[in-house]
């Protein structure tokens, strides 16, 4: 039963508005740096735009989705009102105000540092303060999720926590811990310099702190998608979840190993020893495990649904799936993009292969495919699934939804496949200008053009998505009934305490952080003369 519908709807609406704005910036970026555009703009605008697009898409949009979806899960799966409604609104406003505070200096050109901060570049302090506000707002959500989880367990001793809630709390705990890295970097390293209290900064240490956040943040983005795979998809297609325990183990694995592997973003950096890079690679390999488990479980759940509908044969059952159902379609397209993106990820995580793609357009192609593609398409699915329950109105533009989802998929493939390819040709990322007339670059022109066209398809799809939601706000009134999650094939009556709590997994997560990050951080902090003069962005003009 959803009670605080306005709270949840506010999160989703703000998230999608931010998404819409950032999407326009993304399409503009694709266009201006492609051969379709003749050179006539100030390159600084490009970096402003990338900073705004990256910060909005990376920090604000997914955080709001995770928060809003988290509140919905709490009420729907625990079947009671959210505890701490006021605090939830405080968190929401912190995120909203933080986003505005951060975007003002960015749009003025005072903080074109890109969303990864990367000192010694230092921008206007309000950019960082805004980001911190967003993070603090999300930490309120983390605290609320844990509180609701604990209270429910106390009230229901011995009962298994519903899977959706268990996974949701896993995601919030992972985020709570992983955001600490960037928070330490901003509070203790960047802000003192941005405020003018210091003029030098230890860039190497800052990047290590950022890597602490940078990997697991992608799993924080991913977890709403995985929750949708496990708890929405089987129900929406009229089937059952293949295994409840397998689902819990996947989320637990994310909690334990998603975070202490971030140094794989620093393979090319000199300040971390090769031995630690190797250790982080090993654990990076492990994090593929929960994804493989998930793909298996979801395919098995789809097979159950199909056979219940009369699907037959070794592969014949695939045709019997309810393909006209938008959730079915979104999940299938998402898994295809996850497959391609995952294959690219295996390349990034191997030390030697990474050297050839590091800082090229391959990387941006890769994370757009996984994040913008596989993950975000499920955000659309979540919204479609939840909307009737939030608005108490029918959401029945199914044809439009399917068109939108297909366009997102096609747009994403058309955008990211050439994007990967030019990366292999050596095209660097984060540059505003490419001289396509130059013989060395001209072979990339066709691919970049295709990519830009894909960007416009995505923009169109994004607008269609907003249109569907807006139409949903004005649809025919009707009670949508209770919001339910998928039922597993075998309903667990009793489950091992380890699969129903987080103490052990948090201990392992923190323990592994100490093992994998403790020495590199301590050593960089102890070394003298590792700071360099800050480069103030937007200064001196």
């Amino acid at each position: 039963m959803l009670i605080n519908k306005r709270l949840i709807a506010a999160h989703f609406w703000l998230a999608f508005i931010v998404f819409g704005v950032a999407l326009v910036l993304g399409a503009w970026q694709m266009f201006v740096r492609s051969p379709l555009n003749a050179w006539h703009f100030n390159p600084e605008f490009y970096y402003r735009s990338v900073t705004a697009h990256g910060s909005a898409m990376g920090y604000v949009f997914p955080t709001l989705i995770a928060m809003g979806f988290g509140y919905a899960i709490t009420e729907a799966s625990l079947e009671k009102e959210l505890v701490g409604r006021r605090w939830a609104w405080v968190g929401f406003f912190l995120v909203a105000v933080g986003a505005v505070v951060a975007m003002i200096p960015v749009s003025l050109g005072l903080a074109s540092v890109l969303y990864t901060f990367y000192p010694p570049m230092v921008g206007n302090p309000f950019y960082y303060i805004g980001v911190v506000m967003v993070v603090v707002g999300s930490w309120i959500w983390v605290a609320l999720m844990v509180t609701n989880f604990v209270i429910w367990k106390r009230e229901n001793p011995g009962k298994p926590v519903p899977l959706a809630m268990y996974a949701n709390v896993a995601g919030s705990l992972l985020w709570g811990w992983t955001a600490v890295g960037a928070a330490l970097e901003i509070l203790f390293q960047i802000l003192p310099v941005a405020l003018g209290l210091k003029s030098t900064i230890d860039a190497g240490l800052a990047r290590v702190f950022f890597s602490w956040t940078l990997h697991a943040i992608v799993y924080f983005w991913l977890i709403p998608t995985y929750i949708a795979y496990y708890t929405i998809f089987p129900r929406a297609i009229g089937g059952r979840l293949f295994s409840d325990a397998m689902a819990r183990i996947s989320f637990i694995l994310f909690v334990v190993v998603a975070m202490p592997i971030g140094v794989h973003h620093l393979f090319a950096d000199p300040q971390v020893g090769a031995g630690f890079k190797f250790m982080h690679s090993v654990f990076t390999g492990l994090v593929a495990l929960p994804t493989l488990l998930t793909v298996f479980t979801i395919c098995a759940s789809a097979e159950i649904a199909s056979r219940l509908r009369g699907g037959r044969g070794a592969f014949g059952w695939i045709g019997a799936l309810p393909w006209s159902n938008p959730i079915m379609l979104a999940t299938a397209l998402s898994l295809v993009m996850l497959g391609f993106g995952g294959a690219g990820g295996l390349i990034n995580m191997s030390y030697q292969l990474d050297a050839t793609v590091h800082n090229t357009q391959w990387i941006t192609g890769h994370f757009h495919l996984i994040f913008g593609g596989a993950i975000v398409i499920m955000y659309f699915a979540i919204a479609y699934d939840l909307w009737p329950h939030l608005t108490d109105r029918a959401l029945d533009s199914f044809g439009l939804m399917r068109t939108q989802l297909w366009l997102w998929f096609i747009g994403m493939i058309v955008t990211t496949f050439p994007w990967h390819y030019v990366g292999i040709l050596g095209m660097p990322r984060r540059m505003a200008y490419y001289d396509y007339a130059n013989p060395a670059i001209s072979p990339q022109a066709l691919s970049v053009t295709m990519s830009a066209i894909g960007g416009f398809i995505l923009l169109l799809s994004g607008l269609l998505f907003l249109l569907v939601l807006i139409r949903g706000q004005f649809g025919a009134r009707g009670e949508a009934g209770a919001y339910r999650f998928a039922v597993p094939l075998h309903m667990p009556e009793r489950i091992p305490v380890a699969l129903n709590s987080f103490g052990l997994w948090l201990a392992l997560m923190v323990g592994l952080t100490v093992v994998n990050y403790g020495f590199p951080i301590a050593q960089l902090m102890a070394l003298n003369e590792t700071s360099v003069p800050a480069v103030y962005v937007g200064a001196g003009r």
Partner: protein
Amino acid sequence: MSDQPLFSLRNPWFGASVGITAAIAVLSAVAGLIWLPLAQPNLKLAGVWDAICSAAGVPRAAVQETGIKPDFKTSNVVMTSEMLTKVNQVSIGRGATLAQRCAICHGPQGVSDAHSPNLAGQFAAVTYKELNDFKTGARVSVVMSPFAAAMSDQDMKDVAAYYAYLPRVPSNNLDTGRPAPVIVVTGAPMRNIAPCGSCHGDVDNKAGSPWLGGQSAVYIKAQLEAFASGARRNDISQQMRNIARQMTADEIDQVAHYYEAQP
């Protein structure tokens, strides 16, 4: 279930998860910190402890001794973006007195037609750095070196502050309508040339990069050619030499005249 212990060896989940995690951590540490470094023939390690230190990223003395010293002097000035940006009246006053001996070439108002650089309105950090480099021998000029040799650090700061304080005066060739050459606006990415404007003003200004507007074209051209030939090498980390070497004679000519025409 709730009375089932979590952190206890009687809980198989506890033993298994901690055991597996610890085993992977230990194995990967042994491989990454000991086995792999020892397996690399080029590392020349003294033993297991040396391997661990090397793989953990501990700075090692052996690496530091092998730097090759150039056979000429390089600039020892450390540039920061805030250097000498704070205005100090006393310093400007002293600088005005000291600058009288510079006036014969650089003009009483810091502007002259002698093809020596116009210093009026130049960033203090820039003037200071050049004087310093003349003094240490990183930059050599028969005219300037003897002047700088006799100046104290404070003298150089004062003179720099004074010239920064003087207003910029446009040259006789002022022509703001002149279109900016491509190299100024977009650089030449394939030759690794950043846009001139990204350091020397217009697009952005970077620490230590002089203001070029209104400088004599003859002077700009001479300096670019000196950078290209290596006759001048006081630019930190070869910032300008790397660029000038890649520029065509035509481009050098274009930028020299373009900047002369700027305010």
